[in-house]
């Protein structure tokens, strides 16, 4: 047994340990967060924690309902904007665009995915909030004074602003995953459809998207999960006013991640407060992990050709 072989087997063992550590990291996170949120879970029922909208830490009321509703609302708005924009763009890039456009678009999409969330937030504050406050909100709430446009929040810091900023943040992800999925669709399928006289769009609609629909679903799920957990940008533009549940796209919303970020500093001062906030983190962890597992699971099977 010489030194080289010893080194090889030592390396193998430590690398194996390392990969097991990576495997267990997410379980460790779940366990750690659960451990720390035990105090509040023991005292208050899960039902009340998740669905009650009463959040008065000083009085010992820790209902996350309003925050969960806020997250869902902002995420829904973001998805409503991001899905059509990014899917249409991805289809355009992969099926219609000239190769040079595609070669240019890909690095740009990557660059955008790398920009700091805070910078998106700054843009939200500087550009989106004024746009919503001065134009969208007065226009829509005057012309359509009903759900989901009626609101008395004139600040511009609202769910819609958050949704717009989030939509732009997640579209690079949706676009690049969708593009990759569309690229796995064999060119011969397009040729087969075109050669019976289908137009390009008919080919996309009936043949390409049909083949790729599962992969595209995964792309959307991954974008959704990213929107769900994004913190700084929504913290900066959503208004974060306590409110039972937002009833309008122009109402302020207080999403879960923003709550966690905002309570930093004060959460050790009140009993159970920290446990409730970490419980919120656990909820976020559970939801995003579930989405991601679904999304990546689908993609893995899609790529290996099982679907």
């Amino acid at each position, binding site marked *: 047994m010489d030194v080289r072989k010893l080194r090889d087997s030592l390396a193998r063992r430590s690398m194996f340990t390392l990969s097991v550590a990576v495997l267990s990291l997410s379980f460790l996170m779940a366990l750690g967060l659960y451990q720390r949120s035990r105090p509040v879970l023991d005292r208050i029922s899960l039902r009340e924690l998740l669905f009650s909208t009463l959040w008065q830490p000083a009085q010992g009321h820790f209902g996350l309902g309003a925050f969960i509703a806020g997250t869902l609302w902002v995420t829904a708005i973001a998805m409503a904007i991001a899905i059509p924009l990014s899917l249409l763009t991805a289809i355009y890039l992969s099926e219609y665009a000239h190769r040079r456009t595609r070669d240019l678009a890909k690095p740009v999409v990557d660059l955008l995915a790398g920009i700091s969330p805070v910078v998106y937030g700054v843009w939200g504050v500087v550009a989106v909030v004024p746009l919503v406050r001065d134009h969208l909100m007065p226009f829509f709430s005057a012309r359509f004074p009903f759900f989901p446009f009626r609101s008395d929040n004139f600040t511009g810091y609202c769910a819609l602003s958050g949704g717009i900023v989030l939509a732009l943040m997640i579209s690079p992800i949706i676009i690049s995953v969708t593009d990759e999925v569309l690229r796995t669709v064999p060119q011969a399928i397009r040729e087969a459809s075109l050669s019976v*006289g289908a137009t390009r769009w008919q080919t996309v609609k009936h043949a390409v998207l049909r083949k790729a629909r599962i992969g595209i679903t995964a792309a959307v799920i991954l974008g959704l999960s990213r929107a769900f957990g994004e913190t700084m940008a929504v913290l900066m533009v959503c208004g974060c006013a306590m409110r039972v549940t937002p009833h309008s796209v122009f109402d302020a919303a207080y999403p879960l991640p923003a709550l966690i970020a905002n309570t930093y500093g004060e959460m050790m001062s009140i009993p159970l407060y920290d446990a409730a906030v970490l419980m919120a983190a656990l909820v976020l962890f559970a939801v995003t992990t579930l989405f991601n597992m679904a999304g990546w699971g689908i993609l893995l099977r899609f790529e290996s050709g099982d679907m």
Partner: protein
Amino acid sequence: MNVEYRMEEIQLEAFPHIQVQHLTVAYGGHVALDDISIDIPERCITAIIGPSGCGKTTLLKSFNRLIDLQDEVTVKGRILIDGEDIYDPRTDVSALRKKMGLLSQRPQVLPMSIYDNVAYGCRIHGIKSRRTLDKIVERELRSASLWEEVKDRLRSPAARLSIGQQQRLCLARGLAVEPEVILGDEPTSALDPLSAERIERKFLELKKDYAIVLVTHIIRQARRLADYVIFLYLGKLIEHGPADEVLNRPKHAKTRAYLSGHFIEDASP
């Protein structure tokens, strides 16, 4: 009845179905086809032969403008089909492609059921009536001699068929839109010998009604099927003519070398 109508139409025509005039196709800087001029005769099987990379598939796919899908492709010259230049900007490309049925190297079924595969083209072109579609699907599947094998499972995914069945399904799908020309891009190369034979026999039947253009690298297949042969080498048209002449009494040294399996010594085209 359909057939009779078509015969009539053909007799009215004074010119060959496909006329290629000074066609040059380049991908970026690479010239794939260099100044090709040729007429493709009606109601014949025309085989395009030549060593790989000689531009066989490019020539075939320029007939239904599938080369448009390639990046940075430039086309010079004209291709006239029914007397109209298909590279004219006003050409309705999808109508053109409807006229030209394509059978590709590997059978490519669409991600849907057997029935929907055949009905796909008809639906695209606006046939909605269930009964008409049923009729067309049965007729075309019968004509591709696939009906007996699949009639009980028309709703099951086409991808579950064997590869030979898939190729016959592709043929049925192409015929369902009533094309005028059938383009085959080495359509038997992925098939087992039995399935290949079925497709070949089918082609011999179909040439009564259609012009068939067949890319093949199997010389024996060309001997079995072709009435007319085109020999391409490095993007240039070397020789063309009736099959008997080109295959048995080639005029050009390169054709002789290729047919006899020797190296083509003189690399200059």
